[in-house]
């Protein structure tokens, strides 16, 4: 489904990696690891089409993503370092907007339910500005419950700032998505309690 070939990433003067190839089939979960600054975030942004690689190409169902950006992005759900929350809007409003902007349009009840499931039932009406770090993160992750139809999830350090229980819940959600035939690519420095140990791509191995 998702293939990357011969990827190279150059940042300023530094070649982070090159000749990186990866191929993911339905149901796979890939964990990208590597020490700080080895290019995990850079790789994920390239896979999403947010950044252009110095060399190489990314393919989705055999089509280069730059050729058919729209259908690739219809299949993708990305969550980056930044939470994509507006401080003035409530978690509910933020979530509805995030879905609508991505082209889905879930109704309010579905969004409220997703927020409840992720443990923000009590904060549904607060402006996002006053949320705690972990609560902000959760709003972004609530989209996962509404994006089940999107096969490809790309998550950059999703466990940051989450408490232990939330980490376990999220891990379960990710596993369920894979069992249902989805693909997950994630980075994390924490040890997440996956039932079956995920496939690992260690950037320390391909680094230049």
């Amino acid at each position: 489904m998702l293939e990357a070939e011969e990827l190279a990433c150059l940042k300023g003067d530094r070649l982070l990696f090159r000749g990186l190839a990866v191929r993911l089939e339905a149901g796979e979960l890939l964990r990208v690891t590597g020490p700080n600054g080895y290019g995990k975030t850079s790789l994920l942004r390239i896979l999403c089409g947010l950044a252009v690689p110095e060399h190489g190409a990314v393919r989705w169902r055999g089509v280069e993503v730059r050729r058919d950006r729209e259908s690739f992005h219809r299949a993708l759900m990305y969550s980056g370092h930044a939470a994509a929350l507006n401080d003035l809007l409530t978690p509910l409003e933020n979530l509805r907007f995030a879905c609508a902007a991505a082209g889905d349009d879930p109704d309010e009840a579905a969004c409220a339910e997703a927020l409840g499931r992720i443990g923000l039932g009590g904060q549904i009406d607060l402006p996002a500005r006053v949320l705690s770090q972990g609560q902000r993160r959760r709003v972004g992750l609530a989209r996962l419950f509404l994006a089940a139809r999107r096969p490809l999830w790309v998550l950059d350090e999703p466990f940051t700032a989450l408490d232990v229980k939330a980490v376990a819940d999220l891990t379960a959600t990710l596993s369920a998505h894979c069992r249902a035939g989805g693909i997950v690519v994630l980075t994390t420095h924490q040890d997440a309690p996956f039932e079956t140990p995920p496939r690992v791509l260690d950037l320390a191995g391909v680094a230049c």
Partner: protein
Amino acid sequence: MQWESWSAFWSMGGAAPFVWGSYAVTLLLVALELVLVLRRRRDTVRRLIRLRRVTAPDRDERRASKEMFE
């Protein structure tokens, strides 16, 4: 030749500040630009040479990367 004397030439019929002001500033700017351009070239070369020395150990890798970019 139109000028009776050098001093007539320099006074430009009374318009010396304007004429010479124009030419002087132009000359200054052109000279400045040339100096900046040449200095930039020198600095670039020096910087890149220094950079090459610093990264000398992985020069082989860089060569490989160049091949890859082709």
